[in-house]
């Protein structure tokens, strides 16, 4: 199902962990849906991302895309990093199975949330002006989902 590069980034994820004193932190996702990603940014005075770390609760695709996204934005300015899309991340990984593409959105949104947090801290504005990634959704619980994952 996953290509070798995805497996590599899942088995040997880059940039796992947190940063003490990060000046931009973003957390998106919903444990209900099975994935949550937290991004820590260390951004220097020229708006360049000096270091980036992540923590992810999620499937292999979520972890691999988290890892790849952090690798891609290290050394970029925050404005350059804002342009990173989930498709860029999936492409860098050599593609994801179609049902896993939504997992790559997590990384994009978490990065954007962390950058928004950084800008917010800098300007004192509300992060809602930049993104709505952390607005929770309130879907109804369903006891009979459309698909089951255990094969029998």
């Amino acid at each position: 199902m996953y290509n070798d590069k995805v497996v590599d980034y899942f088995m040997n994820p880059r940039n796992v962990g947190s940063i003490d004193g990060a000046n931009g932190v973003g957390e998106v996702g919903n444990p209900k849906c099975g994935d949550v990603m937290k991004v820590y940014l260390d951004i220097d005075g020229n708006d360049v991302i000096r270091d980036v770390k992540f923590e992810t609760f999620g499937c292999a695709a979520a972890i691999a895309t988290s890892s790849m996204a952090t690798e891609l934005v290290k050394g970029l300015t925050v404005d350059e990093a804002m342009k990173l899309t989930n498709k860029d991340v999936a492409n860098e990984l050599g593609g994801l199975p179609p049902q896993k593409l939504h997992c790559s959105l997590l990384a994009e949104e978490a990065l954007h949330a962390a950058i928004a947090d950084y800008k917010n801290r800098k300007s004192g504005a509300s992060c809602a002006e930049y993104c709505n990634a952390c607005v929770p959704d309130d879907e109804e619980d369903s006891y009979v989902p459309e698909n089951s994952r255990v094969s029998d």
Partner: protein
Amino acid sequence: MDKRRIYLDNSATTATAVEVRDAMLPYFHEAMGNPNSLHSWGRESRKAVDEARESVASLIGASAGDIIFTGSGSAADNLAVKGAAWSARGGKKHVITSAVEHHAVLRTVQWLGKNGFDVTILPVDEYGAVSPEALEGAIRPDTILASVMYANNEVGTINPIAKLGGICKTKGILFHTDAVQAAGHIPLDVRELPVDMLTMSAHKMYGPKGIGALYLRKGVKLTPVLHGGGQEFGLASGTENVPGIVGFGAAARLAEKLFAAGEAERLTKLREKLLDGIVERIPDSFVTGHRTERLPFLASVCVRRIEGEGMVLRLDFVGVGVSSGSACTSGSLDPSHVLLAMGLDHATSHGSVRLSLGRETSEDDIDYVLGKFPPIVETLRKMSPYKG
């Protein structure tokens, strides 16, 4: 890199036993006749089908004439549920099932609900079992049928089938049980068990894929799902899958041998060692399903703060094949309907792992898994934003 390979996904499918495969082989080429033909080729195949029917019937204490071969366990479930409902059409219109059924039953019942029938889906307790009181309370004057699985495929909990069936018998409604996970692994006897219909599948008991069976008590009227040449007593048209049927017969005979050899007891011991070992060695993990009213071969756990797919892939990397009820192998974001119905929250349900043992599983295999599993959890937890 470990070369070891340990298959612990026998609930998904089992390896066809060598003796089963060998019994099947002649029926592909040498003995290739259509059992419905009059000539000697046909008669030879018919004889093989009849013998296999005897063996499958004998496994559950039934008569050969009560066994209908179908294309799969799902086909048998569809025949039982739709067949009984359709047969009562125009009169009664209520069908009962449980929230933790395999989709072959659950979606079939839901389909009936969209096509003019009334449906009740019974809740389950924290172990995934249906209570006799809940079933009794749901039965109405216009109830046709209740379908409750013998044992759950994700958590292994065994339902109180004798009691549930007894209630249906007293109330005069049909009772079907999907025994796909149970048949061949725990002794079943329809002479004592008050069930009208019971589903089995060969590939869950060391037989081939592509062949199932429905036990149908004499006198129960079903409308066929498949119409055609009238094979299988008019209930499952289509030329018989002779090699598959022969394989099912051989698998049924093997199951009886395994019972006699104490295989269920051996697996229960290994299962308990595995479950104890996991909850001891992995903090914040717990057993799902009932601890004693449980399939001998099925161990299932939830590991908090991490997601199941990661565990499945990392265990696979060290040669261990298991499965998870987590979301994310499909477009849906919902985890297992079974765990949710048992009252677990979404995040916890995403961390489920099922390890299902088989006749090739050794104690050494269990030790290997117990050695490999905890560090995998440790690694994934280091990546998780949730801390203990």
